[in-house]
């Protein structure tokens, strides 16, 4: 009896020593916990829900493949609903202090992104921002906030570059002779993009003949459309959310406001439901947005099947193709799982930060055509900038009857821009 007990004890002791000596960290098979903050109730629900679905697909796909490459640890999300910026701060605090997460991801929209990253930074938690693009996110002196999605500046630049490179010849006017109008919804996103268009356009030789903001609760677009009619722009760049985008388009048709080309920036104009709401009116509208379904030749061989699988799974679940921000959310999380986490050992924020700063992922290596290269106080236009992804893919796609087709930049494009100048309403 004692002999047996001694034997068992020795075996156990031996196993213990072996375990101690081998480098396996305690709980080697424990999943990696990532706090996820999205708005699935409240005014931002639409974006939040779509982002959340995309992020879950990323998690499911990586776990089906055995978890994080190299570590074989699965990914586990700890979710919090953040309907408002105040809730975002409280919920982030809760995930960090009560659930103990050291990594957060999200959050679908700029006002929430600002709040979440603020709360995360206070605790020294690593935040991977998947969709929010307001520039202030990377200008606050944070150390652990990384904005994977393109910043507002990039959208503005894509729109302006598209005008100069593709529209001027199609409209038959040089840049200096083009009349460009700018319309923006006056919350963080609209303002941010607007500011950048305002700053970048003159550098490319364009001048703005109209520049107005409006309130999100607007119900009557008559004054705005009338102002635009009187100013007769060739190109209109508009940053709107779904409800105001629909109101604007309808009012434009009603008052017969015609423009040579219309460029919407993200949010309202990239929403796949727009076609359901305004039907054929939508054809011809350009959208400066995340790249959605890029030219497959622009993607590298490893990521191409992943991108295809994502599109299929999203479409199966939501019964429609993913909007740009959802695609970005997936790409960002996939890159996090396959480019960043495999290099980690302790998964502490400081280590993740170092790895992130060292990432040099070429464009085309992510599912939506993006790459990764973060600023580190070394960006010429603004030394304060930290954590902005300079290789996030932004381009211009167009609503066409065959679908939403990428038309700019050439590297990512699958189609040519069509319907320039835009036929008058009476002819559409």
């Amino acid at each position, binding site marked *: 009896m004692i002999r047996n007990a001694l034997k068992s004890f020795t075996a156990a002791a031996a196993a213990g020593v072996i375990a101690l000596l081998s480098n396996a960290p305690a709980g080697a098979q424990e999943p990696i916990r990532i706090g996820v903050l999205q708005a699935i109730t409240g005014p931002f629900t639409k974006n939040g829900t779509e982002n959340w679905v995309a992020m879950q697909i990323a998690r499911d796909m990586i776990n089906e493949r055995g978890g994080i490459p190299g570590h074989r640890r699965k990914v586990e999300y700890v979710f*919090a609903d953040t309907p408002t910026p*105040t809730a975002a701060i*409280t*919920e982030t605090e809760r995930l960090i202090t009560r659930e103990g997460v050291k990594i957060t991801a999200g959050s679908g929209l700029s*006002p929430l992104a600002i709040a979440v990253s603020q709360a995360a930074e*206070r605790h020294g938690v690593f935040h991977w921002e998947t969709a929010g693009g307001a520039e202030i996110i990377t200008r606050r002196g944070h150390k652990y906030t990384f904005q994977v999605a393109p910043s507002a500046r990039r959208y503005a630049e894509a729109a302006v570059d598209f005008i100069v490179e593709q529209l001027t010849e199609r409209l038959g006017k040089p840049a200096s002779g083009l009349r460009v109008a700018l319309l923006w919804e*006056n919350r963080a996103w609209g303002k941010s993009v607007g500011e950048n268009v305002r700053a970048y356009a003159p550098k490319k030789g364009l001048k703005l003949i109209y520049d107005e903001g409006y309130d999100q609760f607007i119900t009557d677009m008559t004054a705005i459309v009338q102002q635009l009619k009187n100013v007769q722009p060739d190109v209109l760049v508009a940053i709107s959310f779904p409800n105001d985008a629909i109101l604007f388009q309808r009012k434009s048709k009603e008052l017969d406001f015609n423009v040579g080309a219309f460029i919407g920036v993200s949010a309202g104009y990239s929403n796949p439901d727009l076609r359901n709401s305004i039907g054929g009116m939508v054809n011809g509208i350009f959208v400066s947005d995340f790249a959605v379904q890029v030219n497959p030749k622009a993607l590298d061989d490893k990521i191409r099947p992943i991108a295809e699988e994502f599109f299929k799974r999203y479409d199966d679940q939501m019964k429609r193709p993913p909007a740009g921000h959802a695609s970005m959310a997936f790409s960002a999380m996939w890159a996090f799982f396959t480019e960043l986490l495999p290099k980690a050992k302790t998964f502490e924020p400081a280590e993740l930060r170092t790895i992130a700063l060292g990432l040099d992922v070429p464009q085309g290596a992510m599912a939506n055509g993006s790459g990764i290269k973060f600023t580190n106080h070394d960006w010429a236009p603004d030394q304060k900038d930290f954590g902005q992804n300079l290789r996030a893919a932004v381009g211009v796609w167009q609503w066409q009857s065959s679908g939403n087709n990428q038309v700019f930049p050439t590297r990512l494009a699958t189609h040519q821009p069509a319907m320039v100048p835009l036929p008058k309403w009476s002819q559409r």
Partner: protein
Amino acid sequence: MPERGSISLFEVVLFGVCLTLVAVPVPHFYQDVMIVTFIWAGVALAWNIAGGYVGLISFGHAAFFAIGAYTSTILGVRYGVTPWIGIWIGALLAAALGTTLALIGARLRGPFFILSTLAAAEVVRIAALNWTSLTGGAEGIWIAPVPNAVNMVFASRTTYVAVMLGYVAAVYAIAKTLEGSRYGLRMFAVRDDEDAASAAGVNPLLVRAGAMTISAFLTAIGGSLFAQYFQYLDPTHVASPELSFQFALLPALGGLGTAIGPLLGSFIIMPVSELLRSYLGAVFQGLHLAIFGGFLIVVMLYFPDGLAGALKRLGLGRSKGPP
């Protein structure tokens, strides 16, 4: 059970419990809930001075809150004025707005007054949103999270909890004092029967203006403290109608017209709504809010005196004087 004009055992015990929660090490998340609860309780008490004591129901208190928050923050971040002083400036500005509102609404009663407060608050919100050079507009303003006592940024969350407790205790003391004073009698008189009060020599306009001024002043302080803790302000969540409703809701649920009502309302509703959202938020989109809405309807229809009134009716105290 608390009564007008005297301190009851209940209040002493409650204060003791709060002090203990501040002193004892408590997990961060609970401290966060406490901080928010204390601030909201203070504002609810301040709201009640106008709404419960004088009957000036306001759905625009977020305007005072925002003025307090933005003033102390702008002065601190842009001009280097310490928030310890900035808070009072914000409070004075808000008080001025409060007096103005009372004067504008001098002849308004009932829903007319409510709507005028709503309109005024919306004007403040839209101004804050569009006056970008002053307020940072939609992107907001934030305070650098560098701990520094002069800038009222504390490293320890416990210090914040202590400060907020101090705030709510002070507002409670003021409310309680008002409640039991001669001025308080005048306030209740104006609320219950303005004509009779007038006939008895009370000047309703002065009482209304006074109450709004005090209420606005105290609310603004809460706003400044909020700014110092959250360190991020933007008009959409600091000056919104939703926030105004919350500030009116808590005293209504807790029991208007008493000092303990808003306190009870906040201490119970705030943690419960945080918990509801944390647990049900991910389950079914909007379920936790739907439950909250339903609960509100039931309470208001069947317990219009709020929680304080319900407790009284359950015989936990003898009522002395009008409810």
